[in-house]
């Protein structure tokens, strides 16, 4: 049945109510995001992973609360079997087991997670900054600026990322920070195209003309007037970029072009232990599990943000809409708002008073 269109209606009415209360755009977005259960779970999960990854093995000179570091080689206990128990919960001596040399795999996985996270954040920040700048400049100024920047984008798109990994690996053995930086410097192309598209349509709008007539400079129009309107596209795309960056890093490390020993990353851990799958499967499961957890939560956060910024496109928590509709909406609106919540083909016709 035509749930989609009634969806939109119900959202509009929700919007109207919010406007009546006088909520700002930011508050609306926040409210919608907090209504997205999956995204909230994802935020909590990601925060948990970040927290244990940072505190357990520490950073730099600080040692964290875990008894081993990722380089210690304690004695092999029980063939390196994982000692983690969920019920009753206990970590044991080596919760994630040990590798063939006896290194504590929990510490190694945490170190790998740290590095993968750092690379992810670097890629997200750098590619967002570069992509937004290029996209904004070409979309706003058009003309030769656009031609030059977009052709440059085309060139960067077809340069293989693997090649860059090889170049960095050979010339700068300095490790993961540089790797993340350089990956960020090539992964901005999609962002630039999206932002350009947004700017192309936004610059024709009346409020831009108004700002220009009021004497605003180009910089002011870009940063104060247009950019805030494009912030949804930018945020969502950044999260998607970050989730693909974490997979890219692991792939590069897997092929030997990314993070290299003696340092470690989640991809490198899997790559160096794949032959041991039949004898020590845990060496293979844990890093993979962490990659999936991180990537999955970032994807869900991105999905939540997209819904929050662009309610026309996607869902909000329908149950919430329905409940609120029944609690605080005047009677005439109720039928229209409550209708789509009873989906699955049994939607009553609007106005039948259900």
């Amino acid at each position, binding site marked *: 049945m*035509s*749930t*989609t*269109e009634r*969806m*939109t209606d119900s959202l509009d009415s929700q919007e109207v109510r919010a406007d009546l209360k006088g909520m700002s755009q930011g508050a609306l977005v926040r409210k919608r995001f907090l209504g997205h259960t*999956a995204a909230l779970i994802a935020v909590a999960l990601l925060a948990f992973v970040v927290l244990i990854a940072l505190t357990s093995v520490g950073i730099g000179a600080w040692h964290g609360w875990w008894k081993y570091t990722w380089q210690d080689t304690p004695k092999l206990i029980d063939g390196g079997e994982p000692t983690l128990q969920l019920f009753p919960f206990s970590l044991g001596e080596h919760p994630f087991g040990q590798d063939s040399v006896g290194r504590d795999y929990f510490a190694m996985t945490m170190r790998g997670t740290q590095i993968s996270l750092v690379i992810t954040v670097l890629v997200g920040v750098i590619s967002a900054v570069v992509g937004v700048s290029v996209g904004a400049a070409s979309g706003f100024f058009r003309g030769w600026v656009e031609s030059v920047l977009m*052709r440059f984008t*085309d*060139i960067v798109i*077809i*340069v*293989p990322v*693997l*090649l*860059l990994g*090889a*170049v960095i690996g*050979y*010339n700068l053995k300095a490790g993961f920070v540089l790797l993340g930086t350089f990956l960020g410097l090539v992964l901005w192309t999609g962002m630039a195209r999206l932002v350009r598209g947004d700017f192309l349509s936004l610059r024709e709008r009346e409020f831009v003309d108004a700002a220009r007539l009021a004497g605003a400079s180009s910089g002011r129009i870009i940063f104060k007037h247009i950019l805030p309107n494009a912030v949804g596209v930018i945020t969502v795309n950044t999260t998607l970029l970050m*989730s693909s960056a974490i*997979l890219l890093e*692991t*792939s590069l490390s*897997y*092929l*030997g*072009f990314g993070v290299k020993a003696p340092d470690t990353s989640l*991809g490198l851990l*899997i*790559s160096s232990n*794949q032959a041991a*799958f*039949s004898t020590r499967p845990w060496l*293979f499961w844990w890093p*993979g599990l962490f*990659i*999936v957890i991180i*990537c*999955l939560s970032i*994807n*869900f956060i991105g*999905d939540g943000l997209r819904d929050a910024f662009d309610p026309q*496109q996607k*869902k909000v928590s*329908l149950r919430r809409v329905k409940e609120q509709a029944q609690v605080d909406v005047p009677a005439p609106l109720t039928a229209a708002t409550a209708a789509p919540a009873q*989906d*699955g*083909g049994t939607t009553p016709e609007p106005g039948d008073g259900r």
Partner: protein
Amino acid sequence: MFSYVMRRLGVSLLVLLGASFLVYMLVAVSGDPLAEFRESTKANKDQLIAQRVELLHLDVPAPVRYFIWLGGAVKCVIPGQCDLGSTLAGQPVTTALSTAIPSTLQLVTGATLIAIVVGVAVGIVTALRQYSALDYTVTFVAFLFFSLPVFWVAVLLKEFGAIRFNDFLAHPVISGTAIAAVGVVSALVWPLLLGGSWRRRGITALVAGAVGAGVLYYLGVSEWFLYPGLGPVLVALTGAGIAIGITALLAGLQNRQALYASLTTVVLALIAMYALAPLLEQATLWLIVLLGLAAIGAGVLAGYLFGGYDRRQSMKAAGLTSFLVAGLVLLDRFMQSWPAYVVATRGRPIATIGSQTPNLNGDFWTSGLDFFTHLVLPTTALVLISVASYTRYSRASMLEVMGQDYVRTARAKGLSERVVVTRHAFRNALIPLATVVAFDIGQLLGGAVITENVFSFKGMGALFVTGLTRQDPNPVMGTFLIVGITAVTFNLLADLAYSALDPRVRVKA
């Protein structure tokens, strides 16, 4: 239009030139091609170095080398004159490419097609049942697939899909736990798919669970895994199911002529299954292609003869049904060769590496099976990770279309939901997908670097990575050139296709 295409081609050429220069420079700084000799203690060290220097023109700076390479590459416009240099082993890059490209296409084409068909179908269905349990499940699974590292999936597939499955095939005894698990899974999945009221879902769950467990038990008892086959009964039943499904989708079940035409083709296929059996013993690829075309032809003819108020619909439905049922018959024939193939591979039928079993020398059927068993795992890995994005794209696109005014109009004028969905919504929802698909096909030749690596396929990706690790510039440049040209061309095609499919979009003439 013409001037637009010419301008785009010109710009693309410039972009390719710029990118190839950049790539050449990057390759030049990505390693030292002489490194393996510098530490060498061989007596003829200097001579080896001199050879390598001459081969790669290392005596001139990198930008000059680029133009030497470009000079050879430009000659590719003239047939037979192509000179992309040679690898360090002395093999011309053009030869290496001509073996790598078919291998890559073999690996990636099937995977991409399956991913597109499955992804679009799932996306459309979830869009039509937005916010159902099915929709939420598919969304979660899509995100999960998005988040899987391909090499992780590939290694898992190798372990469970090949090594352990082959172990199982050696002693195909199905345990009670496995039967129970399959029963529970099908009891969970079918209600999701079919939906309906809670009562209906409960009944579906019970029936599906019992049937699932029962089928698996029967397969185990009848040693189906050792001697698989469909047999005439199963072909007839599945064929009838296909006929009804296709007719319901394309023509609607109230169009009786279309239904009868489709069912007739199933009967024809069953007759052909026995009549053609001797001919199929000496099958070749061309014969199969010919028979496939004949099947479509027979179906279309059946549709034409049954006619009905909309002859085209009958022809379409019967033709498609006939093709699919012919596929079933083919599958059955392949299954009959399975025991022989298992013997030929010494009881390890599912392969983990490479693209064929060396020295197999089987007939069409065994070598066909060999082809499939080598492709099944890499294809599964590729489909798993790429199906998710097609699902999301087609779902979003379908949702948008279903909210359009013309869909409301179509409903308002009394069209059936089937016609609204298949004629009005589905076709328009495919337009934005055309761009994505064209773009992805443009990337196909790049190969699936990691999948090729895990499964030891010698395709474009492998050529590229080996070149990169050995500091061998020419194969790297060769693969880059092919990938770059196809990517640029298909981008152009995507834009043209978009404006052709959607008249609202005009190219800047």
